[in-house]
């Protein structure tokens, strides 16, 4: 910067003299800066005589901030339309239409960045790292779907999230996942969420983005491994409904928690449930639950109570055990942070153990030697923070497993066929299997209530 300014002054001095009295000063200044300039540059910039005009370096302009805010507006509008389509219009066609739009806009046009799923990491980094200022647009992407979930359930998943839309649109031959497997795998998103927050908050890595299976597909570019993983997910999605949403998505875990408290819920029937059981098999995600009465006799009630109390007693033990396990995992986890990795390499090199290293590592090591005390101090801070984070992460996982057990033990009372609040994506497939809804829409009766027929929307 400084050099360029000096150069500009010099040029003015030769071309135009601003005022006569200050000319000697100007000349002195020019000479001083000019010698300074020659000392810094190996080759002085030429004085052209042919009238050649030096071109300006052209810098492409980034996408405007206004468009960035327009994305937030589109997000809010899409959430609104999806919610209306599920609750008021009760139409699968509208849900599909919104999904296609979201897939095109947030997926292929915006190339999936920034999305609600990834924003978890920005928020974590922003909360625990004062040097990172959180862009307002990212806050909106993080908070809007959660606020909607607190009132309407997971309408974001239904038709706004491009990941969900892509998987839902290719779901052609759904097969059922057994409940025990569904419940077991359902814990993974919470674990993934915990790990992602730990790594993001300590500034180690953004693993959600790094290992996202669909972003390479939206960009139509990426490493062969990334594209292969994306394609495999897509193929699995043809048979298993939304595998990423159900068994991986960390934002889905947050939405699951929020939608437990939702004010309104998706109802299969627009009227009263006649318990005709036609909808029972229509959900490709296996979240429709049969009506269940309260335990009728005292013995059954006592059994439920016993199981519930046992789970409650096990909960603290589970949390303590997994917190301990989490702390054990922290040492290895700290290596995800570039400073810790570099510091370890540096220490090894200082102590004489120095295997042949890649050129990249040698450059990094040279940098480490320049400021080794600062680096070691930084690495120690990160390690300490990840140690603490490991305890919390472990405790969190224990809590999730424990609460899942409690939920299973407690059971639920239902008077009609209904989708589970936290698992329902609001895809609107089940509406089409309800005779009351079909009567309203002027459709004939369902021939065979299979998931396949329901998924085709016919």
């Amino acid at each position, binding site marked *: 910067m400084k050099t360029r300014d000096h150069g500009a002054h010099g040029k003015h001095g030769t071309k135009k003299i601003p005022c006569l009295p200050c000319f000697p000063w100007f000349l002195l200044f020019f000479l001083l800066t000019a010698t300074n300039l020659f000392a810094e540059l190996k080759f002085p910039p030429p004085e052209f005589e042919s009238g050649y005009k030096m071109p300006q370096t052209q810098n492409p302009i*980034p996408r405007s901030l206004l468009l960035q805010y327009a994305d937030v507006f589109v997000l809010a509008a899409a959430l609104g339309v999806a919610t209306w389509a599920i609750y008021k219009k009760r139409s699968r066609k509208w849900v599909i239409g919104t999904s296609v739009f979201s897939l095109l806009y947030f997926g292929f046009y915006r190339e999936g*960045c920034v999305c609600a799923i990834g924003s978890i990491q920005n928020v974590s980094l922003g909360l625990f790292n004062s040097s990172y200022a959180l862009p307002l647009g990212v806050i909106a992407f993080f908070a809007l779907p959660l606020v909607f979930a607190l009132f309407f359930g997971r309408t974001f998943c239904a038709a706004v999230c491009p990941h969900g839309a892509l998987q839902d649109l290719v779901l052609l031959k759904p097969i059922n996942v057994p409940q025990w497997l569904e419940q077991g795998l359902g814990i993974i998103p919470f674990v993934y969420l915990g790990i992602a927050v730990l790594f993001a908050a300590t500034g180690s890595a953004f693993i959600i983005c790094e290992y996202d299976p669909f972003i390479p597909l939206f960009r139509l570019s990426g490493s062969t491994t990334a594209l292969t993983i994306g394609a495999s997910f897509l193929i699995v999605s043809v048979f298993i409904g939304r595998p990423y949403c159900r068994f991986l998505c960390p934002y889905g875990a947050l939405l699951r928690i929020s939608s437990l408290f939702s004010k309104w819920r998706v109802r299969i029937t627009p009227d009263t449930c006649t318990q005709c059981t036609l909808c029972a098999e229509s959900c490709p995600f296996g979240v429709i639950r049969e009506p269940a009465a309260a335990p009728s006799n005292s013995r059954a009630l006592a059994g439920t109570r016993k199981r519930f109390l046992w789970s409650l007693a096990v909960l603290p033990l589970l949390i303590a055990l997994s917190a301990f396990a989490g702390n054990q995992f922290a040492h290895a986890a700290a290596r995800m942070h570039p400073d810790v990795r570099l510091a370890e390499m540096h220490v090894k090199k200082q102590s004489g153990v120095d295997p042949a290293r890649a050129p990249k590592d040698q450059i990094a090591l040279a940098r480490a030697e320049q400021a080794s005390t600062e680096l070691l101090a930084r690495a120690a801070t990160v390690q300490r923070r990840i140690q603490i984070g490991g305890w919390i992460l472990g405790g969190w996982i224990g809590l999730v497993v424990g609460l899942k057990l409690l939920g299973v033990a407690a059971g639920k009372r239902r008077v009609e066929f209904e989708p589970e609040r936290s698992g329902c994506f609001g895809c609107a497939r089940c509406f089409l299997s309800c005779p009351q809804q079909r009567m309203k829409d002027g459709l004939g009766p369902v021939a065979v209530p299979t998931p396949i027929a329901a998924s085709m929307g016919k």
Partner: protein
Amino acid sequence: MNESQPSPVSRREFVRGGLRVGAVAALGGLGGVMATRSSADDFLWQIDPQKCSQCGHCATDCVLETSAVKCVQNFSICGYCDLCTGYFEAEPIALNTGAENQLCPTGAIIRKFVEDPYFEYTIAEDLCIGCAKCVKGCALFGNGSFHLQIRHDRCVNCNECAISRACPSDAFRRVPRSKPNIERVIAH
């Protein structure tokens, strides 16, 4: 339906309502804390040319097929040398535009005669792959006017830049959208 049905349902509803209010309040609190650390501006990734060590990872580690990192010429500090060490191989056969003399693997540098003895060097960004060979050559013997920059018309602005994780020199950082480039200056 028997008469005792509404009571437990309404109790559940009450608890749920309370928890929802709690969740909204928690989200609001979180939003408040976030807002104190927020910025109306957005962030983009950029390379600090003063830190760059020309390792070549920019060409290979970008998520895009052809890297969004390109060589950029800062004309104001260019020496317009005839024997440009950013343009020519270590021992060129002749000082002309013959491919065998060029350092750039894709022929992305355009050499144009200005006046004796000066030549202008510009980058054809469509051809440039961001390998930094010319940057290294220029920094070694020249003024260092060639430098790497992320081009924001190509960059998809990943939440965490993949090259930044590979960069051994810690040269990548988030810069405000309103000031998206870092200029090359001469080191003292």
